[in-house]
């Protein structure tokens, strides 16, 4: 039986930046996914990376940067090693109110229609899809570090 191995190129660490405003997220995600091409990720893994990063960016824009309306940038730094894909999202918005990343609790969906949750899924998805979630306030900046162990 012949086994075909897809040879992966090494991924050079890269950083992209995007304006901290809702309308910039799609482009930021597309740029990131495009730069991951050397890893030859499966469609499933690409979906996972895009979801986790989308949720992280949406949170920064809705909360940390709610008052700045796109006047500051968000930086996304990506590197890959034997453990997986490391994403660091940095912004100079307001700190997390609790000093740490919100928890992994899933909103309860076993409820009446009128009480069905319309939000609160973002952090749950981040925690579920990422192996490691670390938040740190350094100086005037928020640093969210996410590690995804991908099937590569």
């Amino acid at each position, binding site marked *: 039986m012949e086994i075909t191995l897809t040879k992966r190129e090494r991924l050079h660490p890269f950083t992209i930046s995007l304006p901290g405003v809702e309308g910039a997220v799609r482009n930021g995600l597309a740029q990131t996914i495009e730069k991951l091409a050397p890893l030859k990720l499966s469609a499933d893994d690409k979906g996972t990376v895009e*979801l986790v990063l989308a949720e992280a960016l949406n949170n920064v824009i809705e909360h940390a940067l709610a008052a700045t309306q796109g006047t500051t940038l968000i930086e996304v730094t990506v590197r890959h090693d034997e453990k997986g894909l490391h994403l660091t999202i940095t912004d100079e918005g307001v700190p997390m109110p609790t000093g740490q990343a919100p928890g992994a609790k899933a909103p309860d969906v076993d409820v009446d229609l009128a009480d069905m949750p319309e939000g609160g*899924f973002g952090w749950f998805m981040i925690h579920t899809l990422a192996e490691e979630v670390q938040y740190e306030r350094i100086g005037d900046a928020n640093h969210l570090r996410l590690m995804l162990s991908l099937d590569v």
Partner: protein
Amino acid sequence: MDLTSSKEAGLQIVTVQETRIDAAVALAFKDGMREITEDGDDIVLLDLNHVQFIDSSGLGAIVAAMKNLGKDRRLVLAGLTPTVDKVFRLTRMDSVFGVFSTVEDAVAEFGG
């Protein structure tokens, strides 16, 4: 938000003619759904086969659309692409909506 509507016996089919339901369009999706399902059938089938990506805001908007139909009407889903399906499974929202592989399957279940 580009939504189109068609009729089958017993149900209204709303097709999302865009590839993403994300934070940028969640509000427009909610408003569009409210408008297009006004005075429609009791069962609304949301055809997501063109949608490649939803985030939690998009998911919330679909939940809002279901709630807006009220308790006497139903929103069911068809045509979930892999990443969309992943979001519904992770959040267990697949247990809240009726989910069908294809529009034809849903029509066979509810139609006529």
